[in-house]
């Protein structure tokens, strides 16, 4: 029992840590007033870049750096298209998410002759070292967003509370909101790239489709956490706990249903629970608004 509980706690943290870092990056873009949709794509290229760097025998640290660079590169594309060429930021982000797995597949085939799993043993790291590394990065990012001059200006340029006047406020204060938005996208790309790299480090390989929509969940966490750093972090922890619970359930029980194991359906739990939480939270908020 106790063994199960500790392993549940550990695997909750392991699932939550990459999610949290990606979500905090997305939060930066949301605060700047232009939410990045390309988190999922950045995680994919980040995971692949880490596995690729590890082919040269490097370990966790350089894997994470490689992931950050790759995520940064992808967000440069999105940020460039959206903020320099004037493309719709949502459409450009979606484009990056479609482009990323294709790009990875092409590179993988050209460099390693495989489109499938890219094993990289030297990257494999224990859960604790990944959790500690990502937690430190999360903490740094939170401090940066809430305490630094840059973070405050970032918020001014997006001004969530009064989006309409945010740009004017920023301009009046002499802040180029476009530059801050671009920086926010680059931060988000790097954070998501590191998050993706940590996924690859956890299993010691790049596996196509390994992000399984985590980038989108990170965006949901931004909304669930009401666009504030600590609640966003809490949302990620809860989601990580749900993933861990689903995994634990799968390893403990077996409810055979006509040749299939019904416990596999637990995999859907994090998505359904998150949707219900989102709906319930909006309902409470709406009721509050109406009573005022």
């Amino acid at each position, binding site marked *: 029992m106790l063994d199960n509980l500790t392993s549940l706690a550990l695997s909750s943290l392991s699932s939550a840590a990459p999610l949290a870092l990606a979500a905090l990056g997305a939060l930066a873009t949301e605060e700047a007033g232009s939410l990045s949709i390309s988190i999922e794509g950045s995680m994919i290229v980040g995971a692949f870049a880490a596995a690729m760097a590890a082919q040269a025998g490097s370990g966790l640290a350089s894997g994470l750096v490689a992931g950050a660079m790759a995520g940064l590169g992808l967000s440069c594309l999105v940020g460039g298209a959206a903020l320099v060429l*004037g493309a*719709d930021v949502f459409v450009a982000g979606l484009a990056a998410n*479609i482009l990323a797995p294709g790009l990875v597949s*092409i590179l993988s085939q050209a460099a390693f002759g495989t489109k499938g799993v890219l094993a990289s043993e030297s990257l494999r790291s224990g859960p604790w070292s990944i959790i500690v590394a990502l937690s430190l990065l999360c903490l740094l990012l939170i401090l940066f967003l809430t305490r630094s001059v840059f973070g405050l200006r970032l918020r001014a340029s997006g001004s969530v509370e009064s989006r309409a006047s945010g740009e004017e406020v920023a301009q009046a204060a002499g802040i180029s909101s476009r530059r801050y938005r671009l920086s926010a996208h680059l931060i988000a790309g790097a954070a998501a790239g590191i998050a993706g790299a940590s996924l690859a480090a956890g299993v010691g390989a790049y596996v196509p489709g390994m992000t399984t929509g985590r980038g989108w969940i990170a965006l*949901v966490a931004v909304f669930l956490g009401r666009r504030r750093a600590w609640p966003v972090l809490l949302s990620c922890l809860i989601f990580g706990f749900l993933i861990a619970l689903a995994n634990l359930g799968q390893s403990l029980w077996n409810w055979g249903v*006509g040749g*299939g194991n019904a416990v596999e*359906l637990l995999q859907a739990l994090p998505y*359904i629970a998150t949707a219900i939480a989102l709906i319930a939270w909006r309902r409470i908020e709406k009721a509050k608004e109406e009573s005022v």
Partner: protein
Amino acid sequence: MKGRTRARIVALASSLAFAAIYALVASSDPMGALYAFFVNPFVNSYAFYSLLESSASLLCCALGAGLAFRAGAFNLGGEGQAAVGTLAAALVALGCADRGLSGAPAICAAIVAAALAGGALALLSAVAEEKTGAQVMLTSFLFGQAAIIGVNWAVGGPLKDPSANLLGMAAIPEGLRLPLLAPPSPLSLAFPISLVLAAAVIFFTRGTRAGVEQRLLGKNRLFARAAGISPQIGAWSMVASGALAGIGGSFLVLGQTGRAVKDMTGGIGWNGLAVALIAGSDGLGALPAALFFAWLDSGARQASILADLSPDASAVMKGIALLLITAASLGSRSRAKALHAKGKA
């Protein structure tokens, strides 16, 4: 309008330029690769008919995404809605086969079941938004992901055909599949049906009162409410969006593949959304955009078979096209200025 056209041309040309550069750099036989990509899908009739067939499901998903988009909702659950469509179509078709039913009514029943399944999944998000304001963009994705997990489990588990090697349900008998139009190619009735659906969507958006109201709702919710337009049009758009994605899924089962297998939607929901965004919000552009995407897939596949390239190059090309398609400054200067004046990110 002129600026928009120019932006589209630049976006599509960049995407094709990538294909050319990729072929030149990565292939040992660049000319063969270029021929396989650009020419083969059109001169080889089998390849051309397969291209048309695969554009059918894509077009349905794109029409659906476009309808939701017009009403101001981002339906990110197209993939899941198509997945439940595949399951519903297969269940009804196999159920009909068990009762000895076949022919047009049974096939129609399978397609309608797929539409209902996809529509019902989208309805969840629509109701959630109307009752609580939970964003469709988020809930449709979450419900869609959960549905994909459920469908994959059912198809590869309790409903799996024990005699088959692959993770999938039993094959749909011949009399319950969409009739082939040009055998041996996979071109089936799915393509003409998708054209009819496209015509219906265009008629709805341009020729009906509800279509105009839908557009107003999408442009400005507050104004639409003030003008007395029922917000239910938004919910119905979402349901129609899911239903069209479900029909797209049913075409895969009743056409090309002939059975429901695990992970069979393979991104048509996301690609449908991309096609809808490239096409703009009018249904008219969806057909050429869907054909363009189907061509990229077909060309990349040909190039991978005939010359040693990755079939996934098509994903990169789609991404490049989509990345630049809304870029205002590739269009006219005035449009770029207008965008900046609007303070759009």
